């Protein structure tokens, strides 16, 4: 089906099912139970899962397949966001034009930056992409203020022309929509003491994420994907086989930049605001973390990594000392204070500490990311049985992702 073989079709169907059922699956705990805070079925969080999933899938097409480690992918995310907000301001509150423009503009950006940066490989490539992203970030903050609105960030205002929309007489800011269906609109369903929220914005992002995933799957299985893996494996042999490596890497770079632009456009479509900090190198670092954590070069890994990090970020930042005291109230007083004190260092404000530690632990002990971890556990269970066929989730990446050299 759809140009996929049987295993891949099954795989895609599972992914589609999981994505569409996310509002239910992420709400496993009853509303008034103590565990309700671990639920993740809120529209804005689910939207971020889908959006950062797209971002990471795109990043993986470059890094996972070719081994070129870009440290400037946030620039495309930021460019996408700015483009989309401008469309929302000038044209219409319908999100489609903004998203299309976001992809086109970020694609053009990627073409220029990639054309220059790909003349070098290894760490030089990483530094070049970083330099371009930092330049964009600095310019967005300073001289490009007319386009980016500097530190405040680009926002909607009542005086925006929005030439395709009917005049806004309500006196309040309009909301983003898709042909009239507001992104913020939700349908709530109460069932089994749980509230399931089906949000328009989430499903819009989810459908795009599924398409993005499907395209990535096709690329993985295509001759083009094979060439990208050849770039990572041995560029010398590739050249002596009559293949030019650079057009392949440039195409991968542009595709991956457009994925980032799409993610940026979606961020702006869900919350019509674009700030320069979205382009900062820490944001570029974040997508690297997501991809590695999940497993670079695997199909599902980046999505898992993105979801994992966004989920932990959300949950960990919510846990404060009060909550912790509630959890550890069964401990004797002195011990309770100690345990709470320690736990508090890693939660709430301390979330970044946890992130840093997690990052180190993954790179040290699990260079292949969560996917490899999952496969190792899977192997433990399957030991003694027949050789298990490839489950289609990965392309057997080398144990350690590496920089192309």
């Amino acid at each position: 089906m759809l140009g996929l073989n049987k295993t891949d079709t099954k795989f895609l169907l599972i992914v589609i099912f999981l994505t569409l059922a996310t509002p239910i699956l992420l709400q496993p705990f009853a509303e008034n139970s103590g565990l309700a805070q671990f639920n993740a079925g809120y529209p804005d969080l689910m939207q971020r899962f889908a959006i950062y999933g797209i971002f990471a899938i795109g990043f993986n097409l470059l890094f996972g397949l070719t081994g070129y480690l870009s440290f400037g992918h946030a620039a495309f995310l930021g460019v996408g966001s700015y483009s989309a907000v401008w469309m929302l301001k000038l044209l219409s509150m319908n999100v489609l034009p903004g998203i299309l423009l976001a992809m086109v503009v970020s694609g053009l950006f990627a073409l220029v930056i990639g054309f220059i940066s790909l003349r070098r490989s290894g760490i030089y490539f990483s530094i070049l992409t970083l330099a371009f992203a930092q330049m964009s970030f600095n310019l967005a903050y300073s001289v490009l203020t007319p386009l980016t609105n500097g530190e405040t960030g680009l926002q909607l205002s009542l005086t925006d022309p929005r030439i395709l929309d009917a005049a806004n007489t309500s006196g309040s800011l309009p909301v983003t929509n898709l042909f009239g269906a507001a992104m913020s609109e939700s349908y709530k369903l109460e069932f089994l003491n749980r509230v399931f929220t089906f949000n328009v914005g989430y499903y819009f992002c989810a459908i795009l994420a599924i398409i993005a995933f499907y395209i990535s799957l096709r690329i993985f299985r295509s001759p083009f994907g094979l060439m990208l893996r050849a770039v990572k494996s041995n560029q010398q042999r590739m050249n002596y086989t009559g293949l030019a490596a650079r057009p392949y890497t440039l195409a991968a770079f542009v595709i991956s930049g457009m994925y980032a632009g799409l993610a940026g456009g979606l961020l702006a479509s869900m919350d019509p605001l674009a700030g320069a900090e979205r382009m900062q190198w820490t944001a570029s670092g974040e997508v690297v973390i997501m991809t590695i954590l999940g497993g670079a070069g695997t199909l599902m890994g980046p999505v898992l990594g993105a979801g994992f990090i966004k989920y932990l970020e959300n949950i960990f930042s919510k846990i404060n000392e009060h909550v912790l005291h509630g959890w550890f109230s069964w401990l004797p007083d002195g011990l309770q204070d100690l345990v709470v004190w320690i736990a508090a260092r890693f939660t709430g404000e301390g979330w970044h500490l946890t992130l840093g530690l997690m990052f180190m632990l993954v790179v040290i002990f699990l260079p292949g990311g969560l996917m490899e971890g999952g496969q190792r556990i899977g192997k433990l269970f399957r030991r003694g049985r027949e050789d298990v066929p490839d489950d289609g989730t990965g392309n057997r990446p080398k144990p350690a992702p590496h920089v192309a050299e």
Partner: protein
Amino acid sequence: MMDAILLQILNGLDKGSAYALIALGLTLIFGTLGVVNFAHGALFMIGAFCAVTLQRILSLSFDVIDPTQTDFLGNPKKIHTTYLESWLGPDIGNAILDWSVPLAIIFAIPVMILIGFAMERGLIRHFYKRPHADQILVTFGLAIVLQEIVKYFYGANPIPTPAPSAFRGSFDFGAIFGFDPNVIIYPYWRMVYFGFAAVIIAAVFAFLRFTTFGMVVRAGMADRETVGLLGIDIDKRFTLMFGLAAAVAGIAGVMYTPINSPNYHMGMDFLVLSFVVVVVGGMGSLPGAVAAGFLLGILESFASMNEIKSIIPGIDQIIIYLIAIVILLTRPRGLMGRKGVMEE
């Protein structure tokens, strides 16, 4: 015009000094150990907080109730007295406190060497044979961790750490050299920082050139395996090297505190630029790192002149990156890079 140029060069020197010192350490580690250390900026930051810590220790105080004075409520007044003052008398006590930043160097060197040893033995050592991407990522994680720990103990706000009062003012640099007075005003401490950086850089180079240890290390930078074949325990020396690089970054941070009040993310801010500096100078070249550090510091300050900004708006924001891009494209190995480093 001459004076304007001189002023910009001077302004670029202190930032350039910091870039050069950090880039020097990065290059030492990269050249000897082959490790791309993204936590090096964090070492700079920890050094700065060594100065803050010493300042806090020195100003530990107790309260004495002075019955002869009363506060505005009529109660006997409490007087803060530092232990230092009560032990050594007000003159010496206050002088020591006043000089806490330079004194912090003595405090920071052993601390930084220990941290360097611990890092190398505990973490970096296991990454020698791993791909550069893994090294970048694990040290990036470490940098976040160190940063968060400092943030917990010292808070998120910058902590003012003044220079000794003798160096607090500025002097009319231009007047000394026959320019119009009041045009080239330069703070004393920046001059001190530049001099300090020059001494440290010279010391590191002398150390590498004239000591046997340094010669082995330089040989190791040129060809690791051969040195290993000579039966020299290069690993132990590399540990020492890491400690040395950490100490250089640390004291660079200590001395920088009066110029910019330290905050927990200063390391990251400097790291990105220092990496660009290393690449511009040429991966693995110590003179390249130092030259590029000063060059970029000075160019950055030129680019922030109003005359230049009015011609090319925003140039001050991007000049360093722009230069890095141009250099990388025209001279793939950087200004002074050696053949065969990080390429294939």
